[in-house]
């Protein structure tokens, strides 16, 4: 519904005048809206340019990329074929998928449990626990690398998926996202369940968690994406190319394509593809998830 007239004159209007104002205002609003649309569309298209350019380059033969224009003279999938033939990229997909999925499940599970305690349960050190977990958001991961390396090395878990999975599960932000959401769920529901004899865990599982679906989606998806995209720790912890995750694999071969820009772009596209598919499939969930968090008051 369009907004009503602006610049309303401060005196009584005849019906004709009022109608004229309404008509012109409608028109101005429409023009304004259309301008906004135009600007936004321009920016959105601009935003798509880098990815489009990458795809454009990847579809060319390597030789053609040294004098690049948007036109593709000899479109070819050769670059993609080269990369897939090199074999390791499929292993990288598997590694990334497994580690990210396990972390997503683990994070949702551990963070929601912890948040339930912080939100619903009363215990003496509640605020201490809250601040203790809050500190975790600020610790930069670089400083944790050498200690973690020594820790995981001593139990021979390095160079396995666990080395990537275990340190990624405790995500402090996830706890707060859940807590924020749980706080918004009326406590009467809990009370009702308790009166019916449900224990805390039943309440958590059957009442509170189902109502927190947006938060579950958000946390699951973000922990999945963050694990997938993590570069530095997996780079140092994984030495076996067969279990490297995608970013590590890409970083390892980064310099080796030389001036074969089409191959380089193809590797970038292939590296991004699974996440893009995940995004396209779960788009609405992702957005709902973000929308439902951090804003509830």
């Amino acid at each position, binding site marked *: 519904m369009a907004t009503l007239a602006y610049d309303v004159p401060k005196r009584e209007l005849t019906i004709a005048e009022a109608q004229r104002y309404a008509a012109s205002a409608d028109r101005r609003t429409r023009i304004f809206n259309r301008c906004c649309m135009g600007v936004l569309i321009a920016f959105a298209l601009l935003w798509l340019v880098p990815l489009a350019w990458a795809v454009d380059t990847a579809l060319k033969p390597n030789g053609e990329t040294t004098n690049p224009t948007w036109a593709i003279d000899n479109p070819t999938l050769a670059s993609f074929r080269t990369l897939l033939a090199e074999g390791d990229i499929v292993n990288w997909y598997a590694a990334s998928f*497994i580690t990210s999925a396990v972390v997503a499940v683990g994070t949702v599970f551990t963070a929601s449990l912890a948040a339930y305690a912080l939100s619903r349960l009363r215990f003496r050190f509640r605020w201490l626990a809250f601040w203790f977990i809050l500190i975790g958001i600020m610790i930069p991961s670089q400083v944790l690398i050498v200690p973690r390396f020594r820790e995981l090395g001593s139990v021979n*878990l*390095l160079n396995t*998926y666990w080395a990537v999975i275990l340190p990624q599960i405790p995500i402090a932000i996830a706890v707060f996202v859940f807590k924020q959401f749980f706080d918004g769920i009326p406590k009467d529901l809990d009370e009702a369940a308790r009166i019916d004899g449900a224990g805390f865990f039943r309440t958590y599982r059957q009442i509170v968690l189902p109502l927190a679906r947006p938060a579950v*989606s958000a946390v699951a998806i973000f922990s999945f994406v963050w694990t997938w995209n993590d570069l530095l720790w997996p780079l140092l912890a994984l*030495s076996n190319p067969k279990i490297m995750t995608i970013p590590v694999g890409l970083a*390892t*071969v980064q310099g*080796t394509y030389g001036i074969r820009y089409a191959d380089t772009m193809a590797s970038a596209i292939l590296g991004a593809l699974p996440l893009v598919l*995940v995004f396209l499939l779960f788009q609405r969930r992702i957005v709902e998830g973000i929308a439902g968090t951090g804003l509830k008051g």
Partner: protein
Amino acid sequence: MNNALTRRDLLRATLLGTAALTAAGCSSVGAGLLDTGPDPNTLAYWNLFGGGDGVRMTQMEDGYRKANPNIDLQAVTLAWGNPYYTKLALATVGDRPPEVAVSHLTRMKTLAAGNLLQELHPEDLERHGMSAEKFNQRAWEAGLVDGKIYAIPIDTHPFVLFYNTKICEEAGLLDSAGKLKPIKGQDGFIDALTKAKQVTGQYGATHGINSDTATPWRLFQTLYAQLGGEVLADEGTRVVLDDAKARQVLDYLRLLTVEKGLMPGSIDYQGAIALFASGASGFHLNGEWEISTFQTAKMPFSMTLVPNVFGGDYAVQADSHTLVLPVRPDQDRARLDLSLGFVRSMLDQSLTWAEGGHVPAWQPFAKSARYKKLTPQSNYAAAADSAVYDPPGWYSGSGSNFENVMGGAVGAVESGGMSSDAAIAQIRSKLSHLANTAPPV
């Protein structure tokens, strides 16, 4: 509605997951779940060779596998630079190192100082037919630490001059045999580049500068050593930079890039290669390892020694690839022989390696007629005997912060962003800081 969607989402996710798992097959997943430790018949070998070098190394690894069918060779290629040495160090300290690893000679010393490498005894080497005189003397001596052997050099890879034969011919720079006429002296070099630029219409020569600290350092070191200059002394604890000589080199480089425009002052590593490959430049200064790139690009080129621009004793920057045996808890005679056997096999395949442009350190091959016939690779074999390595120091070596400091400053001068004096001052201050810091090894 929410419930149903979520279950469908979960279903989709599980389907994707299963697809991924089956696609990958069981072996990599199994490797991902457990770390089963080293196997007596397994040889783990780490290297940092990608691109053309990587292809050749893979060939050599296959050669080893064919000759040793009962040994499971697991070769791992990791990215060149910091992560490689970090991972090697971490793995060794964590008691899970590879049996054999590649290391630049200049970094090997730091690893040895950190007690990460096994000492190699002459009698063990003799058993596999390796002895000091069978290697290039300069590389061998440079690799000794207090007279002890920690590494076996397989090559020397110097900084060389690539030239486009067609452009140089048009510029009148080739002799009757079609080889580049020797270029001598500062003016000689400027002259050659100017003639090449006239033909190409763009540049006389290119080399990497942006996001590349190694190449400007290598060029600087070559010219600076030709003047007889040194940068560090006493294992890196003293900065002995000769300001006058450094200024001379920096001013000359700036002359070439900023003032005469003979070389682009802001181009990245790949861009410099691309310009040369496409004929926009007559010369290219880089390590010899890029020979494969230009062969693949099918352009008319050849290679030779970097000219002796400043007169004096000939010197050129180089490093060597060596094979080292990291310290491991389960070391015994059998494992030692396994590793040394692999090392010997790599040396025996020096021909393949030399085709990648490297100057072989293994003399039985280096002195052979086969190598001499290999052109343009044998054109610059003399560089191995005039090689100037990065000065020893815990913070120095291939891909180290020393190179970052030096290369960054030289690059800034070449791009016109910094004066020679400012660059020298910056180098001095940063290196002094490093020199005064206690070494972590």
